[in-house]
């Protein structure tokens, strides 16, 4: 009897616990953003480092300050504020004045995250709301892009490939980059104007595939997001004629990659049910391409993800697995 008692442990459920924790997931995502960070600093120089670290530090500071102010447990070590700051910095042009990342972090952490109840309760992606606030507040600063000139001091302002594509068409884009292969290479490595972290497709892919391999994100959202965008770009992206668009240019330019792998897959603001995730991704892709091809802005990833964030809880509810044997509409 005594021997059996030692073997039998009586406890309440859950009995199988995973080693995962919020902080471990968040720091892994931060790690996955490392390649993109390195490429951002490589292409945009020391200024990129300043903008990124300023935005990270202010995000962590505001998290600490708000939690101190409201007498909650301080959670800056779980990496979520660090991640928000990093993603916000990644979404800024390199030439912004230094007060922009700080104000953006304030909006992201205090208004978007903590006023709605803190981590896990925010409706919208904090980093994207921070960026949307900055874009609407200082439209000129937020759309002044610098050439990727590395560590040289004088960088010229220029237009992003998407702006050229929208304003002057694909002909001008090819003229600037030589031929199509050269254009693809520039877009793939990230040697183009744009927000700090969004330019380098290869760096983001490395980070994204790492997350997929570790199982922290699933393929549902990125694939449906990118797939929908590619199909729409191919069908409607051409000039006047259907099925003549170039999907690769659209996929590799703007914030499409970082949006699909790091923004739309945010645990808090995306659906949990797999089917709902696919619809979520399709919605993101559709809205992105709608804004890019028909809207007033050259880039639509941010607004597309924010709009779909609103629908995440509804999608989850609509696609929730029904209890086996229960009829539709019947209460459990």
């Amino acid at each position, binding site marked *: 009897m005594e021997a059996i008692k030692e073997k039998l442990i009586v406890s309440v459920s859950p009995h199988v616990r995973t080693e995962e924790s919020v902080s471990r997931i968040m720091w892994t995502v931060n790690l996955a953003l490392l390649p993109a960070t390195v490429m951002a600093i490589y292409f945009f120089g020391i200024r990129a480092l300043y903008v990124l670290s300023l935005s990270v530090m202010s995000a962590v500071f505001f998290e600490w300050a708000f939690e101190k102010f409201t007498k909650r447990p301080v959670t800056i070590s779980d990496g979520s504020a660090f991640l928000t700051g990093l993603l916000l910095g990644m979404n800024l042009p390199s030439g912004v004045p230094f007060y922009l990342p700080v104000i953006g972090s304030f909006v992201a952490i205090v*208004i978007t995250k903590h*006023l709605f109840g803190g981590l896990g309760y925010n409706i919208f992606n904090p980093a994207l709301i921070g960026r949307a*606030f900055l874009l*609407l*507040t*200082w*439209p000129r600063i937020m759309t002044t892009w610098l050439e990727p000139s590395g560590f040289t001091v004088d960088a010229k302002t220029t237009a992003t490939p998407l702006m050229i594509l929208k304003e002057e068409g694909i002909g001008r884009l090819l003229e600037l980059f030589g031929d199509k292969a050269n254009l693809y290479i520039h877009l793939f490595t990230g040697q183009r104007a744009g927000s700090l972290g969004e330019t380098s497709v290869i760096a983001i892919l490395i980070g994204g595939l790492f997350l997929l391999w570790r199982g922290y994100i699933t393929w549902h959202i990125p694939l449906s997001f990118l797939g929908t965008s590619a199909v729409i770009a191919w069908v409607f992206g051409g000039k006047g004629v259907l099925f003549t668009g170039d999907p690769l240019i659209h996929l590799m330019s703007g914030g499409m990659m970082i949006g699909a792998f790091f923004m739309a897959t945010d645990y808090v603001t995306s659906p949990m049910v797999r089917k709902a995730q696919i619809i979520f991704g399709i919605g993101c892709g559709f809205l992105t391409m709608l804004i890019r091809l028909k809207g007033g802005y050259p880039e639509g990833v941010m607004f597309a993800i924010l709009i779909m964030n609103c629908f995440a809880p509804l999608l989850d509810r609509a696609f929730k697995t029904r209890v086996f044997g229960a009829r539709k509409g019947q209460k459990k």
Partner: protein
Amino acid sequence: MSEEVIKLPQEKIRYRDLIINGIVSENTIFKLAISLCPAIAVTNSLRNGFLMGIAVLFVQTMVNITVAAFRRFIHPRIRLPIFMLIISGWVSVTDMTMAAFAREAYKQMGLYIQLIVAFASILARAEMFASKNKIAPSMFDGIGMGLGFLFALTVISFFRELLGRGSLWGLQIVNTKPLLIMILPAGGFLAVGILMAFFNWIDARYLKRASSHH
């Protein structure tokens, strides 16, 4: 009226309480969260917000007085259309007065002045208060609700113009780069939301506690 009037245990209504009720505990914008459309649409400058508040204060008070005065002659079955007629009458008065005496402001917000007809808050007070009370309390209730609305719009538009343009009542005050978002509709939602949270926080922290000590 054929319906029997239900006699409630009538407390003596204090006019001061009616006014405070409209400004604090039943503030149209910050507490009841109705009539938010004008609170966002016209509050991008202090002058517009203030004039809109004055217009609503006037209409609310006059509607309450009129409804209370005629409450014995309005048949309950058709009371809502009649309230609407009374409201639209007073809105027309406001509309024409503003068109005559405040032309510049009217150009910017004439449409919203006419929309006062559709304000939930005005119809709600006519229905819930003025149609059941005497003229004097109804008037003070109207003044209270109107002052509450005026206060809310003034505060919202004060912050939106100051942050969004760096000016107040058209006068430039700060010369830094303003937060453009605050005069866009998005900033209106932000301002209303944050101020609503702030006033409810004040209310929960100080006013409720003060009243429970009585």
